[in-house]
């Protein structure tokens, strides 16, 4: 098992070490070469300046010492003096004196000679020009040549050319090259140990931390680095150790959280299993509840229908009951006045019998209308609408509500006629309440049917209060009503939608008119009607 405290055992054969070593060495070598490249021209210039200074000094000395001889054409002295100068100064290779008049003197350590002016290497045009520099020697190599005018009291006497040996100059240059080479070699040699230890010093702690980080990444959170340095690397190692400790602590906390989570998951799983086991029963229960609720709704709807029917019967019976009451009052009155005869009794008895028969028929009609038929059949649309309208006719007339029915004949629908009649009654009832809610002075309800292809659209329109757009999406919900408490159950429109869309496979849609509401029923026309058409 590896020690949690990483030792600094690190082979230098890692990439960062090689890079740092290479960069350090290259940089040092480049700086050395750059230093050499920069220093060589400076040294060369300095040496040339020394040569120039030497040349000017020698030329002035020669001219000063030979001035009298030059002015008196004592060339013997000039030669003698310059020979001595050459003998005493080994760096001077030759002296060339070119007077404006006469022959030139070429004096060298190996000898001297007179040159015709035409053969002198300096042209008269250059007599007044000072020049200097390194030139190639005829025998090979190089020499420093200095040419200066010879003037006495501002008068140009001629020109002097002095050639200096450049061996010292070249030796200095070579020495400089040699030193730079030595320095470069020394640098190269120094780079090896210095660069090695420098790169090692720099990269070893980083590599140690990197190794530790790899261990931490592989999960060894007990890893620590031990680098005792008072610099950023030391700070990094301490921060690293703190970070690893924090990671370990976090991992412990995370493990605890995971453990808790696993327990919770187990519990939830058990609960879910239990739920799955009871789900079927729950679904059955819910369906049962739903059915019960639907039955309740249907029951409530029937009760509401019964209420409507009773109301309608009450309206239908009010007139015959009044008439019957009048018959009884006539009988009583004729009896009191003694005019009750058998004939009149028979007449009033017949009349009363007719009224009772009419009332009985009314009950039969209502009973037949609300007969809970569950058998689907094909029925006539116009007849169904008219039958429903007849039931509410008295009530509507009582409130002066005009009911207009525009329904083409011979439109047959498939469904339960009682359910459809209940739909029409619900819609007419809502229309009635709507126009009464605003005390419409000219209340009107229109039932309009028309065929569109294989469908029929039945619109029930009123000019009542209309429906607030904000509750338009809620009007089909059960027990939702805008009527006053006790006047509405909130199940009429819900049952209407259920009958139209679930039982008769049609659509029910409500929309506001400019004044009032339109309820549109769209139903498929019976195949019987289509065939007949």
């Amino acid at each position, binding site marked *: 098992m590896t020690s949690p405290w990483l030792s600094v055992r690190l082979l230098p054969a890692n990439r960062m070490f090689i890079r740092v070593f290479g960069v350090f060495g290259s940089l040092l070598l480049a700086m050395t070469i750059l230093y050499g490249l920069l220093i060589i021209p400076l040294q060369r210039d300095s040496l040339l300046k020394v040569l120039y200074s030497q040349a000017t000094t020698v030329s002035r000395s020669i001219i000063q010492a030979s001035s009298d001889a030059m002015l008196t054409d*004592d060339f013997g002295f000039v030669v003698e003096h310059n020979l001595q100068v050459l003998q005493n100064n080994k760096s001077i290779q030759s002296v060339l004196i070119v007077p404006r008049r006469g022959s030139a003197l070429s004096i060298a350590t190996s000898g001297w*000679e007179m040159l015709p002016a035409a053969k002198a290497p300096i042209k008269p045009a250059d007599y007044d020009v000072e020049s200097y520099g390194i030139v190639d020697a005829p025998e090979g190599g190089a020499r420093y040549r200095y040419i200066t005018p010879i003037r006495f009291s501002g008068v140009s006497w001629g020109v002097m050319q002095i050639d200096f040996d450049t061996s010292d100059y070249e030796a200095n240059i070579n020495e400089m090259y040699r030193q730079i080479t030595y320095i470069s070699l020394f640098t190269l040699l120094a780079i090896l140990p210095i660069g090695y230890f420098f790169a090692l010093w720099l990269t070893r702690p980083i590599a140690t931390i990197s190794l530790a980080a790899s261990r931490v990444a592989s999960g060894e959170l007990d890893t620590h680095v031990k680098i005792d340095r008072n610099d950023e690397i030391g700070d990094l190692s301490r921060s690293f150790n703190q970070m690893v400790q924090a990671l370990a602590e976090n991992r412990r906390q995370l493990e605890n959280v995971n453990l808790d989570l696993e327990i919770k998951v187990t519990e939830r799983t058990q609960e879910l299993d239990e739920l799955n086991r009871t789900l079927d029963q729950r679904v059955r229960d819910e369906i049962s509840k739903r059915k019960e609720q639907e039955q309740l709704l249907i029951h409530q709807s029937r009760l509401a229908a019964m209420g409507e029917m009773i109301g309608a019967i009450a309206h239908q019976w009010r007139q015959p009951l009044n008439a019957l009451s009048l018959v009884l009052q006539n009988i009583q009155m004729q009896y009191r006045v003694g005019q009750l005869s058998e004939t009149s009794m028979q007449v009033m008895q017949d009349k009363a019998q007719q009224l009772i028969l009419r009332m009985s028929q009314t009950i039969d009609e209502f009973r037949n209308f609300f007969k809970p038929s569950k058998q689907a059949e094909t029925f006539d649309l116009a007849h169904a609408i008219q039958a429903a309208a007849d039931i509410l006719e008295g009530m509507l007339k009582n409130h002066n509500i005009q009911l207009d029915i525009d329904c083409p004949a011979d439109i047959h629908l498939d469904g339960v006629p009682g359910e459809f009649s209940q739909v029409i009654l619900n819609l007419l009832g809502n229309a009635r309440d709507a126009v009464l809610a605003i005390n419409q002075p000219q209340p009107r309800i229109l039932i309009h049917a028309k065929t569109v292809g294989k469908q029929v659209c039945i619109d029930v329109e009123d000019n009542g209060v209309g429906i607030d757009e904000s509750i338009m999406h809620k009007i089909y919900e059960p027990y939702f009503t805008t009527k006053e408490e006790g006047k509405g159950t909130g199940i009429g429109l819900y049952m209407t939608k259920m009958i139209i869309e679930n039982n008769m496979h049609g659509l029910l849609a409500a929309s506001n008119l400019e004044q009032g509401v339109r309820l549109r029923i769209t139903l498929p026309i019976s195949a019987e009607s289509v065939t007949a058409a």
Partner: protein
Amino acid sequence: MKPAIALLALLIGLCAPASRAADILNMGFYLPGIRDANLADVHITLQLWADEVGKAHGIAATAYTYTDMAALYRDSMGGKINLIVAPGMEIAETFTPEELAPGFVGKHHGTGEGLALIVRASDGIRQFGDLRGKKVLHLSNDRLSSVFLENQCRQHTGVACTDLFQVNEEKRNSQTIHKVFFGQADAALVSISALHAANELNPQIRQSLRILEEWKVSSLSYGLMSARTDKALRDRIVKSAMQATTTVRGKQLLELFKTDFMDRVDVQELKPYWDLYREHQAWSNRKARKK
């Protein structure tokens, strides 16, 4: 003094055997004969070399300098000086052959030594007598030049030189040659070695100058042992000196003094000087008798 003189002295000291610690070598130098060098520097150099060489070879070598040949002669005769270093003419005028013993001299390869009377070839001077009325140069403080030129004047024209042409003196041979070359003088009496050196430096000189008279000797300066010196010491010094050029130090000295080699010299080699001296004495005596 000719460089060969100093070289001679140094080589003697250099080559002296180390085994004879009690040997004494006292060298006497006649300084007026030294040209082209600082006399003080020469004296110091000679003494330093004498000390160095003396210690190396077990010889108590000492350099003495003189400005008067008479004094040098006295010290030599008194036994103080073993080696006399001086120009040949001064030696001949001061010493007799019997008072001297063989010594050494620096020589040049191929070129002998002596005097040459040079003129410009283009001047049409064919014989000595043509120098009449001309300007003639010779070395200053050079007894040999004075004696030789005077003898030539007497010999060729029978009159003194001062009556024949204008005589001017120059300090250095090379300067004298250049003055003739550049036409600042008509003739000059110079050393043969100097003329050879001038010719070497500038071949134009050889072409433009011509030797009118020539007098040859083995050397212009000599280092001769005093006849009073012990013969064994003389022989030992001579024997060592002959090996001087084979040592590193000896070669350095030869190079330094521009001398090709060291050669043994016999007293008899100074015979031209003694002849010249006697001839000059004869003219002088004749002149004195005329007066």
